[in-house]
């Protein structure tokens, strides 16, 4: 755990150093660029709240991928599950008319179900026909994408709009801002806490982790690995669905074409960097969100294009993941040298 934190911090710092080198080579001032990045993501009121809001889908899809990968199923369907969750929340928000107290939970529930439906479909195909969820979830992403596009282009098209989008959902389903922070952040934090409890304190989390590490061991130990597989798929689908629902309810309040296009893939990336840990996913989610948010400001004040952030993110992923292994090797080599010295003494 402490080693993980150390390799993470060292990795991120090293990545920033490499990024600075890239900037300097292109003739930009790294200090000013990073200054603007931080200014617009963390050290201004509006920037910070925007970073938090942006972190909602990143962290939720990250948690979805982390829990799935740690438990065995290779669920790569976060993008599709997010879209289906968003669609679920949109449908309820458009057609159900209830006061906020009821409508908000109902929309949340619809988004969870939307995501779980989509991952559940993949789980069903695995159980019935032994189709690998790895490829099925990946393909379902396309189906979800175009299905949603059809829905917002034809049946739910807002005639007053020029591009495919739905009408706004009922204002009773809108998540308000509290002190500048959108309340979707609260739901995200709540979900993250629940995830941590399940994985680190729960009986199911223990079984899921053991199954992910060695499913034969778990099976022979009496765990119902098949039922657990379905549960993990449903839970991780629901998490990605929740990300979509919260994006609708906290953001544009309607399903707009291209919604969440990149967030879900970022979630998978975050899970990989965090090596499927819950708290790691949370922290890296915040970091990536800060980078993406800061990129907007950086582009405003400096001449550095916002694409630089894509480069920086990629460098972070590579350096942290590679660093984790090599740091262990360094530790090993140090330990070996120590032992050798003890021996020759």
């Amino acid at each position, binding site marked *: 755990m402490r080693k993980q934190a150390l390799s993470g911090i060292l990795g991120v710092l090293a990545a920033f150093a490499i990024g600075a080198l890239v900037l300097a080579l292109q003739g930009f001032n790294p200090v000013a660029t990073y200054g603007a990045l931080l200014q617009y993501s963390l050290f201004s009121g509006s920037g910070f709240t925007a970073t938090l809001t942006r972190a909602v889908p990143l962290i939720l899809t990250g948690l979805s991928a982390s829990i799935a990968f740690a438990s065995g199923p290779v669920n790569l369907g976060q993008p599709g599950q997010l879209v289906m969750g968003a669609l679920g929340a949109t449908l309820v928000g458009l057609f159900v008319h209830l006061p906020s107290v009821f409508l908000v939970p109902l929309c949340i529930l619809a988004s969870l179900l939307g995501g779980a439906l989509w991952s559940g479909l993949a789980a069903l195909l695995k159980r019935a026909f032994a189709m690998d969820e790895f490829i099925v979830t990946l393909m379902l992403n396309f189906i979800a994408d175009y299905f949603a596009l059809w829905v917002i282009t034809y049946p739910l098209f807002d005639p007053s709009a020029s591009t495919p989008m739905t009408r706004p959902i009922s204002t009773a389903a809108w998540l308000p801002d509290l002190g500048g922070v959108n309340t979707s952040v609260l739901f995200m934090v709540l979900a993250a806490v629940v995830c941590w409890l399940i994985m680190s304190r729960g*009986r199911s989390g223990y079984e899921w982790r053991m199954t992910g590490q060695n499913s034969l061991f778990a099976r022979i130990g009496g765990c119902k690995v098949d039922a657990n597989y379905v549960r993990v798929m449903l839970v991780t689908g629901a998490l990605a669905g929740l990300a979509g629902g919260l994006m609708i309810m906290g953001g544009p309040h309607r399903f707009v074409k291209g919604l969440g296009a990149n967030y879900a893939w970022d979630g998978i990336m975050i899970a990989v960097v965090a090596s499927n840990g819950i708290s790691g996913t949370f922290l890296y989610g915040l970091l990536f969100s800060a980078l993406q948010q800061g990129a907007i400001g950086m582009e405003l004040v400096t001449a550095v294009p916002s694409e630089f952030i894509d480069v920086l993110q990629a460098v972070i992923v590579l350096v942290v993941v590679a660093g984790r292994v090599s740091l262990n090797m360094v530790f090993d080599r140090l330990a*070996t040298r120590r032992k050798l010295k003890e021996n020759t003494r």
Partner: protein
Amino acid sequence: MARDVLIDLQHITKVFPPDTVALSDVSVSFEAGEIHALVGENGAGKSTLMKVFYGLERRDAGDIFFRGAKVEFRTPREAIAAGIGMVHQEILLIPEYTVWQNIVLGAEPVRAFGIIDVDRAREVVRQKIEEFQFNLDPDALVGDISVAARQKVEILKLLYRNVSVLVLDEPTAVLTPQEIPQLFAELARLRDKGHTIIFISHRLDEVLTLSDRVTVMRRGKIVGTSAASELTKEDLARQMVGREVLFTSRRQPQEPGEIVFHAQGLNCSDTEHRARLHDATVEVRAGEIVGVAGVEGNGQFELVNAIMGLAPMTSGTLEVKGKDITHADILTRRTLIAFVPQDREKMGASVAASILEDAIMTHHILDPRFRTWRGLGLNYRHAAEFVDQIRDQFTVSMGHSSDPFNSLSGGNQQKVILGRELLLETPFVLMDQPTRGLDVGSIEYVHQLLLDLRSKKRAVLLVSADLDELFMVADRIVVMCQGEVVADLATDATSREEIGYYMLGGKEVAHAETGS
């Protein structure tokens, strides 16, 4: 008689990261034309030392001299070119190729344009077989010949490459008692022709029969080298373990109780519909240890899988304590069966998990004390106490319960698994090779544990490839051959030779009726 020093290993040190000292300042020399046994418990460093010599492992310090010159083999290929060959524990041949094809593979005699000279290759192999009197058919498919014959092919493969030094890593581990003398005769013949043989083993009788000199290793260090003729089995064991070891059974006479485990007419087939288990019937009574002997791959694996519910049976019934578990799910079986699998890393535990996580498996479902929050939560405090209980009761030497499982030595890993399974307090215990890969001290511990279970009136089924082990602890031995139970013999009324006879497919079925 004094021979010339051929191989001299000086001050070899090898550390496996992070802090396992596999070899600590090891110096040993091997003489030309001798059979030199390298003995020690598992983990003593015998194989590692030879792998360092052979270029399979890097060393961290020390020098290697061969024929008086300092050498450095970076790969086995370089070692073979210098005239040194090693036969590993696992046999690595191509089953679809014939004997001669396997032997020449990688060093084929060629004609012009690189075309393999088939006739010459066959002829050279045939000559080698004759020269060393190996009794092999050069045209037989390797997939069709016995394990012992395959081992000969491995050795011939090296002789074909004209090595003068042969390193054999536990060559008898895969052989039946009948096949061992033949191997020994062949090795002795090789020595008489001037070859040097380094023979890694932990079977003391063999070492004393075969070798000229013996070097004992313990915990990565050399204990000493002596002439085999000056040693007794007890001396060797003491040097290996560092204390006296008992070789005789401490099995007290005891009347077995009622039938606890009863498997009747088990049949199962593999994916190609070949029968893997054929009408296998086994029963175990309370306070009885029944051993399952057999050459590996004769249905033991399938028997274990059938009992645990891991593979479907085509017919047959299973009963534990009068309860029919033929169609029960694994969890139901686990309430009645404690199971120690043969492969710790694949079945026994998750090596990536912590000691605690591996120690509480199954208990976390069956024991309500592991639950909190109405069964949703796992009671980690109780789990930690449970690990302490295993540690104390089964003398596990370990750090904190949150340390990774693979920070434990093999023996301690096995103790954690044994502790976990035996604390399930089930009437029936199934152990599949529980001492495989353990050192002598841990093996002794496991045997004592088995005998304790026996006196506690548990029923134990022990699958083992080690006949010594079966003769030491088992009351009865059933022998499996090609999926059938071909013999069921009371240990006190049989011999290793008789068991070996049935293992190799002796057909007459002998039943030592045990009162049923």
